[in-house]
């Protein structure tokens, strides 16, 4: 449900940057989304289908790079990749860990078609 709010924010941000670059079209939007967030790819795609109509991103492709959770154990110093459902250190079993990756909700980059005389 909230993927619509998220996609609206994406569209506002990418259109602003595309206009700053005098782009004719947005060809691709590259997102980075962590496994620990509540964003569902299908819902994001659906929201994009609806929201891109009549914008510079009308024919753009949406790419989503998913980031696996990655944490540091504050007891033994081990760093480890893990599934979202288990945060404990696999080396010493500690539950005192710090999450370093997995919560991303970012626009990594966009790919633009910029007319030659504008670039």
């Amino acid at each position: 449900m909230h993927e619509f709010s998220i996609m609206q924010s994406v569209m506002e941000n990418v259109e602003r940057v595309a206009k700053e670059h005098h782009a004719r079209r947005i060809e691709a939007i590259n997102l980075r989304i962590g496994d620990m967030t509540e964003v569902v790819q299908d819902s994001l795609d659906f929201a994009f289908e609806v929201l891109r109509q009549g914008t510079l991103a009308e024919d753009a492709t949406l790419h989503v790079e998913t980031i696996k959770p990655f944490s540091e154990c504050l007891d033994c110093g081990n760093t480890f990749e893990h599934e979202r459902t288990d945060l404990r250190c696999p080396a010493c079993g500690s539950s005192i860990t710090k999450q370093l990756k997995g919560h991303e909700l970012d626009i990594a980059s966009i790919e633009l078609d910029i007319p030659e005389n504008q670039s």
Partner: protein
Amino acid sequence: MAHHEVDMDQAILQANDKLAQKNRERFMSHGIYVINLLSSPGSGKTSTILALINELSKAYKIAVIEGDIASDVDAQTIKETGTAAVQINTGGLCHLESKMISKALDVLDLENLDLIIIENVGNLVCPVDFDLGEDIKAMILSVPEGDDKPLKYPGVFQAADLLMVNKIDTLPVFDFDTEAFDSEISKLNPQAEVHKISATKGEGVKELAEWIRNQIEAKRA
């Protein structure tokens, strides 16, 4: 035509996060401790808030920000205790955002508040990703909802710093496997503060209020 890749490296929810940070600074400058309370509809958020008001309002000035799709039933219930309450109606949006909180703060007497409880829209998914400027996210699961909710909705259980299991007075009637629940939480969110309570019957409420009292005092120190 020329193809250009432009790096953005920008948080999608940048606008919400910036306002959330402004809210956070406002709270800090007035020494107010803020709880963002999440759960599904019917788990007992309002009852728990009423129980906490009962325990804490002698020592602390409390205000409640209520988030619902429609109606001001909850805000009215809170106001009847003599506690300030602001109702936000989202009109369909499934979560609160920091801009809504910012507006609500404009009608509260921040100078004279110690604790604000934000009762988010009843929803186990959407509110998780939206920072409102709070000190902690808290989550209530009620016994009748079942012990498998952490498996089905890991996100909300992981986002919460404070987890409350409510309606423990109904344990004899429902098939709630407390051991299985505790085990799951120890994997999903091992650092969470867990309190098992009955908001309406009183069990565990004093201990919960004590923990919140400690957090309020720690923020002031």
